[in-house]
């Protein structure tokens, strides 16, 4: 069956030692390929809004409440 997704994808290049390391990492996991794993990781990273790295366990509401309080108190 033709892969219709090929028209919607681009090729990224990574160093071969990194590729080999990722292959070792995903061995025995549910990831079928390095590509699948890389897409998974990059989608997660791309989904995080700016400032999230402050506290990954904080919700957007909590983050905004913290920022608002910091602004009110003059810290931001």
């Amino acid at each position, binding site marked *: 069956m033709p892969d219709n997704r090929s028209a919607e994808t681009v090729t990224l290049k990574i160093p071969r030692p990194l590729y080999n390391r990722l292959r070792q990492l995903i061995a025995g996991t549910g990831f079928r390929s390095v590509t699948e794993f890389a897409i998974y990781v990059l989608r997660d990273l791309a989904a995080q809004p700016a*400032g999230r*790295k*402050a*506290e990954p*366990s904080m919700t957007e509401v909590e983050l905004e409440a*913290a*920022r608002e309080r*910091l602004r009110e108190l*003059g*810290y931001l």
Partner: protein
Amino acid sequence: MIPPHGGKLVDRTVPKAEREARLRAAASLPQVALNERELADLEMLACGAMSPLEGFMGEADYRSVVATMHLANGMAWSIPVVLSAKTKEQEALKPGSRVALTGREGEILAVMDLENVYRVDHAHEAQEVLRTTDAAHPGVQYLQSIRPCYLGGAITLLQKPNHQDFARYRLEPKETRVLFSAKGWERICAFQTRNPIHRAHEYLQKCALELTDGLLVHPLVGETKSDDTPAAVRMQCYEVLLENYYPKDRTVLSVFPAAMRYAGPREAIFHALLRKNYGCTHFIVGRDHAGVGSYYGTYDAHYIFNEFDPGEIGITPLFFDHAFFCRKCGSMASTKTCPHPKEEHVFLSGTKVREMLAAGELPPPEFTRPEVAQILIASMRGGKG
């Protein structure tokens, strides 16, 4: 951002939508009044400052911390965080029951799901945690003032204690973490103090700031002994010092609500772990950190860090020796960096400084910034010192 101790920032505050209903339900529960130390601990437990703790320690954690400076699950922790029973009746409370925790005015602040009620030996706790059973030690005096029966269990904060003081400076770990991230800081050094900041302390902080992105001046404003400089006076000193001598874009002033234990080395570990929860990556440990009198060796609070694997503590201690202004060096220095004899050092004993301030005399500017000294002199004249 450095992860909290245990990997997750605890949040034991009731969701707003549930607060009123939970407060009504708590009205019928047996009540346990919190003393000043326990009030501060409750706030810090609820906001994650004491992560991974989720409540006042149960028996297993208490005994493990006292004996080994680790929680029962093996995580490093050096100071018991406990709630004392206040009456004989409370000593008979049953595990599995729920109690309401009340504040200064008898208002319900939180509920606790009781897991343990257990008797303790305060002399043993004092010897292990404070390294003394001397009744003159303020930490021993505290233990002697409370019943030797503790109540352990997870807490849920329903409403915060009403603070009139330092409202502008009361940041919780969630807020300091967001602040540091917003400033783009990755390495943040914390400075703990229960005293005014003199030139020596300023020197340590600025040395640390040279190595990091930002400085958190984090004075303890919980209960201290009666002859310590009051927090309100100290905050005036910190404000004037930071306004005049510190880079505004590199310094944050916020308060640390904890009560002082005067436990020296063990408290240095405790202070470091809690600052990690606030998002700090480095922690200044000076001479006789959290000490009192001569109960601890000058650098015991440095050596105790060697009793842990560095990964267990997670926050990097920055150890500083005795610092002073050296006339020959022409600058602030320490015993590590200055080759000159004591006679070249501007040093005043605590007693001498208090005498000068009480007499309205400014200590040398190499010892204390004049703006700070003026505030201390005014406070002593006003009888607040």
